[in-house]
């Protein structure tokens, strides 16, 4: 049974191991002792806090309860842009039209913005390749919504998720070559790496005026808002939950930022409380997310349910064990996926 729970100090080795597997381009968890240690430290601070911190990184791990092994990680930043500015480009439209000449051009622009300052961010999602089956990815990603539903005061009413942008076969984003390179005089990898540490140089080097998209090379234009093929499934999953691309893109690779109000997320909106009744039979059928209501002992797993009565759900003993709950406990429940497909 896979269960998602808060990270603990004991997960250090496991986290270090996962970091080895992430590969290039995954700047938030790199194969780097120091970064892993710092990340864990930041995350542990969030879980130990008794007050509601303004900025916290809630980091979760996915544990296989049968082996005790940690196979995935996911996180939520409670608020971005507070200690470091949060940048993206806002894609705007300007109509340049002359009725007299019968010319009508829709001109698109990219404008540097900090519009998402304060938003909560879905971040740092990584599942070990060997665990990428049986909808484990959905559990790992969506368990965050269950946590947000449970502790809404810890988050902003708006959330975002950044999708990795398109890059060519050599791993070079054409958007960077057409835009960023002119202003940063750096390679993409270098700039990406730097920005994960300190964003002062972005303020110093970025263009302050809008950029006319029609003046960019065609491959750079085509990459605006385009998701990296490897990230397309993650994007579909989030869109099915209610996140939307509203014209904000990453300043380095042009990848889309998806946003949503917390109220508009299906799993948050439709999840509700039930009492647990432990049953003998193994349930079958539609998968549900089931999570506990505790903060530092938050746990979430996915399972079919037995005889769902009004405000009562039937769970087999092994699921209850994985969640560390017993007969009569209150849990939050929602179908794993929306009935409608988008």
């Amino acid at each position, binding site marked *: 049974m896979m269960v998602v729970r808060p990270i603990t100090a004991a997960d250090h080795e496991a986290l270090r191991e996962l970091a080895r597997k992430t590969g290039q381009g995954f700047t938030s968890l790199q194969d780097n002792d120091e970064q892993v240690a710092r990340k864990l430290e930041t995350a542990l601070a969030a879980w130990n806090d008794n007050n509601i911190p303004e900025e916290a990184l809630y980091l979760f791990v996915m544990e296989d309860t049968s082996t005790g092994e940690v196979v995935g990680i996911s996180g939520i930043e409670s608020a971005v842009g507070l200690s470091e500015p949060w940048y993206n480009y806002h894609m705007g439209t300007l109509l*340049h*039209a*002359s009725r*007299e000449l019968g010319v009508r051009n829709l001109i698109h622009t990219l404008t540097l913005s900090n519009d998402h300052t304060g938003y909560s961010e879905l971040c740092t999602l990584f599942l070990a390749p060997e665990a990428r089956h049986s909808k484990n990815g959905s559990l790992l990603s969506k368990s965050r919504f269950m946590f947000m539903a449970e502790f809404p005061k810890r988050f902003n009413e708006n959330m975002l998720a950044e999708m990795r942008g398109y890059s060519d076969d050599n791993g070079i984003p054409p958007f960077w070559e057409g835009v960023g390179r002119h202003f940063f*005089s750096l390679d993409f990898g270098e700039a990406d790496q730097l920005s994960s540490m300190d964003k002062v140089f972005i303020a110093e*080097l970025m263009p302050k005026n809008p950029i006319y998209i029609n*003046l960019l090379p065609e491959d750079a234009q085509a990459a605006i808002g385009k998701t990296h093929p490897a990230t397309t499934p993650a994007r579909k999953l989030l869109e099915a939950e209610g996140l939307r691309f509203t014209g904000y893109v990453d300043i380095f690779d042009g990848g889309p930022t998806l946003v949503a109000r917390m109220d508009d997320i299906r799993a948050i909106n439709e999840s509700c409380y039930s009492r647990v009744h432990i049953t003998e039979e193994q349930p079958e059928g539609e998968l549900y997310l089931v999570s506990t209501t505790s903060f530092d002992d938050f746990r979430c797993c996915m399972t079919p349910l037995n005889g769902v009565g009004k405000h009562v759900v039937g769970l087999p003993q092994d699921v209850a064990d994985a969640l560390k709950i017993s007969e009569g406990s209150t849990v939050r429940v929602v179908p794993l996926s929306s009935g409608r497909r988008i």
Partner: protein
Amino acid sequence: MLVLRPVEFKDLQGLERLAVVSGGSLTTLPANRDHLSELIDRTLQSLRKAVERPEQESYHFVLEDSISGEIVGISGIEAAVGIESPFYSYRINEVIHASSELQIHNRIPALNLCQDFTGASRLYTLFLDAEHRQRSNLHLLSRARLLFIAAHRARFDSRIIAELQGVQDDNGQSPFWESLGRHFFSMDFAKANYLTGIDSKGFIAELLPHHPVYLPLLSDAAREALGQPRSDAARVKALLESEGFDYRGYVDIFDGGPTLEAQTDRLRTLVESRTLSIGVSADDEEADKALALVASGQLQNFRCLLAEVDPEHPELTPAQAEALNISSGDSIQLAWL
């Protein structure tokens, strides 16, 4: 003998011929009869008008072959640009993007749309038939305007500009236009140029990019063309520079050609020209003569021609005096070539 004088209605056919010969290269001289009539009409009205400060007057002059009566050149002055419709330029300015931590220091140049010359006078519409393109005739056609300005200083602004045509490639295309203007105007350079000439200028404001354009985003060819005159404009450029015009980073919004600017009162011709009374003599004396521009008359009667004059005892030939419509002892303006 070539004589410069204000354009008149009888010159319409002559202008049409010049417009055709110039092949649409002059924004202000389109092969369009209505517009050319309007150009003439405006000159006549401007000359008749009592002017307190420069407004929308414009003055065009033609160079007439006094023997054949043919019109072989045209030049003009606009009293003040940007009065009726906005006069746009791009101003090139650099912004420094620097990070001391990363040891990066980028100077990023950008084009800023501006109307900084609003109110300034402008020299424009200079065209001379190929067969008459000697240096001296170019001086006559171009600098006679400055003598006109000297004689009617209150009709012009303290700042004066002149635009040089920008670079074209071997196919007659403007690389600057192809890299920038085309994306916003959705038309050929020639068409945009033609439309500007016939004064339907509203479309410029409607279609132009209003935000600064970062130069690194333009093509190499466009960046190289920026602020450079077309190769055949070198002589005009040299003439203007010798008058005191200089390039300070303003360029034409269509072809990226340089806009030259000067303080009107500091122009060489204005500073150095003299008003004096002159004699008329039939004798072709041997003397150390030098070529000069000689102008006479006010407004409608303004005339200018080239004459070999003895600096010590300036005299004109009877033919020259007749062309200038003066008699011995009359006052003229003189500027050495």
